[in-house]
């Protein structure tokens, strides 16, 4: 069965499931509005509200609005990747999932379909926010855009894997929401999205070091034109550490989700 993921059958099944995620998303306008407007609002309120009230060390020359932009991108990717996997709870409740699980589609391709679908949705939504960047003075080069998209993809793959692992056995959407908010808010706050590690206390720094999102945010900042020296001065990890952590995190989450999907309840 494992081999099947790489075979054409597995790709066909995964592609079909991923496509379904996107089609379902586009048929629910509420999800689109919520997913795009929340981070814009956060960015605007945080950036323009906090920007003049505090002088945060290590935010760089562009001011807080610019600093908060990478954080807003991280938020879009965090929320949309994780909440896209909520569909697995609905799929189970509505009976759709049992049809998928009774099919010969390799379990790995079922997981891959969900993760690819959630990743595409997350990256496209974060990409929409990226389009707004020039309006506020954040300038991104063409190479930078590709760099941002690559980092967003790696982050989204890991986060949607995490979401899927948490959602696989969840019984209600409400319960999942409550638990995941508890995980996601600290993850976002302690990723360098809101404040740099350099000025934080010891335990906050430690938490930031073990938070996989920290590495994604650092890579986003670098892609958005932040110099490596400035990033290092602000306590952010370097490029190789960031990519390594993002890729390992995504791989671990995908394998964990595949294991979980392959297990049948019972004995």
């Amino acid at each position, binding site marked *: 069965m494992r081999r099947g993921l790489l075979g054409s059958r597995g790709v066909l099944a995964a592609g079909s*499931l991923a496509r379904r995620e996107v089609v379902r998303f586009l048929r629910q306008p509420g999800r689109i509005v919520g997913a795009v407007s929340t981070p814009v609002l956060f960015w605007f309120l945080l950036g323009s509200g906090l920007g003049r009230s505090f002088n945060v060390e290590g935010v760089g020359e562009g001011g807080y609005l610019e600093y908060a932009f990478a954080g807003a991108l991280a938020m879009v990717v965090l929320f949309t990747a994780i909440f896209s996997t909520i569909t697995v709870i609905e799929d189970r409740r509505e009976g759709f999932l049992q049809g998928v699980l009774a099919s010969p589609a390799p379990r790995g391709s079922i997981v891959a379909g969900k993760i690819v679908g959630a990743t595409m949705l997350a990256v496209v939504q974060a990409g929409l926010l990226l389009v707004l960047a020039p309006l506020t003075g954040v300038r991104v080069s063409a190479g930078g855009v590709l760099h941002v998209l690559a980092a967003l993809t790696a982050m989204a793959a890991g986060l949607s894997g995490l979401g899927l692992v948490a959602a696989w056995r969840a019984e209600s959407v409400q319960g999942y929401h409550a638990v995941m908010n508890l995980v996601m808010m600290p993850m976002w706050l302690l990723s360098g999205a809101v404040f740099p590690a350099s000025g934080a206390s010891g335990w906050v720094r430690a938490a930031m070091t073990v938070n996989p999102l920290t590495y994604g945010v650092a890579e986003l900042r670098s892609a958005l034109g932040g110099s490596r020296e400035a990033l290092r001065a602000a306590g952010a990890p370097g490029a190789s550490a960031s990519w390594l952590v993002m890729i390992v995190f995504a791989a671990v989450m995908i394998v964990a989700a595949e294991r979980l999907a392959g297990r049948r309840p019972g004995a």
Partner: protein
Amino acid sequence: MRPTPAVLVQEIGHQYGSLAALSDLTFDVAQGEFVALLGPNGCGKTTLFRILATLMRPTRGRASVLGADVEADPGAVRRRIGVTFQSPSLDGRLSVRENLRHHGHLYGLRGRDLSARIESGLERVQLCDRGKDRVDRLSGGMRRRVEIAKSLLHEPDVLLMDEPSTGLDPAARRSLADLLAGLRRDRGLTCLMTTHLMDEAECCDRVAILDRGRLAALDAPSALKACVGGEVVTIHAEDAGALAGRIREEFGVAPQETDRGLCIADPRGHALAARLAERFGDRVRSITVSRPSLDDVFLRLTGRRLEGSGDLGG
């Protein structure tokens, strides 16, 4: 050598915590055979269905489909079976065709072959003109028909159906029966269905009666009914309990008290009915004589009735 059975269930047992849903169940279904799992809600038939559909592991015992073990080789089982779920496994936000296309992809079907199968599948269940409609805008009966088309799309050898008639009107039930009969004739389809409807079970070659997770009987409907006796006399009366005692004393037969009235199986039921009417005519509201139904078989085996057990599945 005997051909491989389409479905083989050997000493299957399943526990939900301390509750035994299935105990020591053993039976087989031959290729091309139609077997009904008949029983009231909670008798374990849906648990068995989920085990055979590879969605659940049994606590004990083994099951296989066309020689492939459901535990050791679920992939091989999944390729051979078609599954009609009781609550349709459709995506309400996708159209009928999109649902079928997606299902085809899960089974490795694609392109023109898949499109042709989708169209003939829709034709089979008379939904050609609804292909573009979103599933959540269809009636319950139509969704059921889409679910049936979906479970047949990949031309399975063994069809597992969980309460297939739920939500279907009598005309749609008849066309489902015709459709299945045609597939058996043309392709040698095997079908194992759970049901609590007697008329659905009557159409099968054999009926497995499940009672509280145990196999109470397994035989052809006619053979099962033959063991009840020639005819069934049903008596409606105000004081059924007292009347049962009097009948026992005076006629030497033991009526069973059910929610449908007092029931007596007797080879010469019509003669007994006439004598009962003469003796207790003033105390009864009605006396009817009928050929035994599978409901009578169930009553005889379990002391309880199947009828009125609701539509919720077990």
